[in-house]
């Protein structure tokens, strides 16, 4: 390895989320519920030069293999991300993200009069994937269609 090519130490076991759309590394962290108070080392790299995307973000999580549901959530904000599962310092599995057909609890309905926005009720938002590109989600409760800009704005 040439000096400087990998700025952080290698992880033994865990996950590398590569090719994250520039500017969304922290959103990925948020979606995965990582707050730094538990678990292993988490490394975030922003504005990394990439041949595929020009500039990309990368997130490396020590000691945690993402499951497929978590992988799908990432698709909402980083549709080109690659998930590398690292075992014993090597890339053991490479997963591409895929938009799930049902999205629970990650985004909020933009309609203020939607019951899912009533914070006193025991309710979690549910959306259905209406269109992938550009992203469109339909609210399970009020049927309202949310456009991509309304969704990205929430992260």
């Amino acid at each position, binding site marked *: 390895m040439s000096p400087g090519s990998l700025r952080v130490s290698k992880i033994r076991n865990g996950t590398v989320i590569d090719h994250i759309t520039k500017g969304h590394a922290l959103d990925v962290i948020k979606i995965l519920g990582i707050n730094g108070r538990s678990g292993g080392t988490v490394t975030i790299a922003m504005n990394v030069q990439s041949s595929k995307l020009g500039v990309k973000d990368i997130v490396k999580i020590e000691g945690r293999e993402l499951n497929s549901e978590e992988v799908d959530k990432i698709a909402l904000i980083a549709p080109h991300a690659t998930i590398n599962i690292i075992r014993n310092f090597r890339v053991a599995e490479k997963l591409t993200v895929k938009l799930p057909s049902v999205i629970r609890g990650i985004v909020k309905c933009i*309609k203020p*009069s*939607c*019951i*899912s926005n*009533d914070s*006193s*009720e*025991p*309710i979690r938002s549910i959306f259905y994937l209406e269109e992938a590109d550009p992203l469109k989600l339909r*609210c*399970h*409760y*009020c*049927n*309202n*269609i949310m456009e991509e800009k309304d969704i990205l704005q929430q992260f």
Partner: protein
Amino acid sequence: MKSEFNFLNRDIVSIKGFSREEIDCILEVARSIEHIAEKGSDMLRGKVLAELFFEPSTRTMLSFQTAMYKLGGNVIGFAEPGVSSVWKGETLADTVRVVEKYSDIIVLRHPLEGSARFAAEYAQVPVINAGSGAEEHPTQALLDLYTILKAKGRIDGLDIALMGDLRYGRTVHSLAYALSLYNVKLSMVSPGLLRMRSEVLRDIRSRIDVIEYRDIEEILPELDVLYVTRIQKERFPDLGEYEKVRGTFAVNLKLLRSAKNDLIVLHPLPRLDEIAVEVDATPFAKYFEQARNGVVVRMALLALILGAIKKQ
């Protein structure tokens, strides 16, 4: 081939939950119990319907009550004024889980969109949406269809116009969707400000052609059904604009001169002056008939959902 229907314990949240065959089946059951609507029956004796009206709607509330009483059942519940004192502060999820212990079916009217779907997720007993937000009013759509069917003998092939406030009126959203399951020619007539919502239009246009108009006159002579809704003054930024629109969208004898003899005029009521009183005595007027049909259709739904009438 016989298709399978399952109405037992079913929630009625959205008109979109129904196939055309299911709607036809409900309308057929309604027709078959017309005589019970006259005489009454004890089909639902011992059953209790709970009306939770978090928003006032006297007509819909009375209609459900009448339907339940005609079938021999009982009704409990509250209308908006009671909400503030008794149920204030309690979540809808809790209210529903308490009230279902008192009742066999819940009828809900609530200001928030999606509230009926949410209530249905928490309730073990079936929930009927009697209006949620600006979104849906499925039983109104069913009674509108029933009125058309009764007056015309069919729904397919009819030339139908929806006129008035197509943007905020929840009844027209559910009705437009229901009509799009049939082979009808559908026109939308409204002032620019009150056009049918684009998401509703897009949905309907995936099944039938819809043309929008700003004026009823040119299409009136072809129409079989004219469905009129109320245009509220509050929707307009200035009074002058409202006054203009009000004239254009008024139904009176002069306008109806160019109509077919068997045109029917419908209105979800209450009306203000969008249909002149002089129209009431003509054979065009079917809006009071609609109110009666609402009871019959709701009887059909209650009997099917609570298992008093079985359909396969």
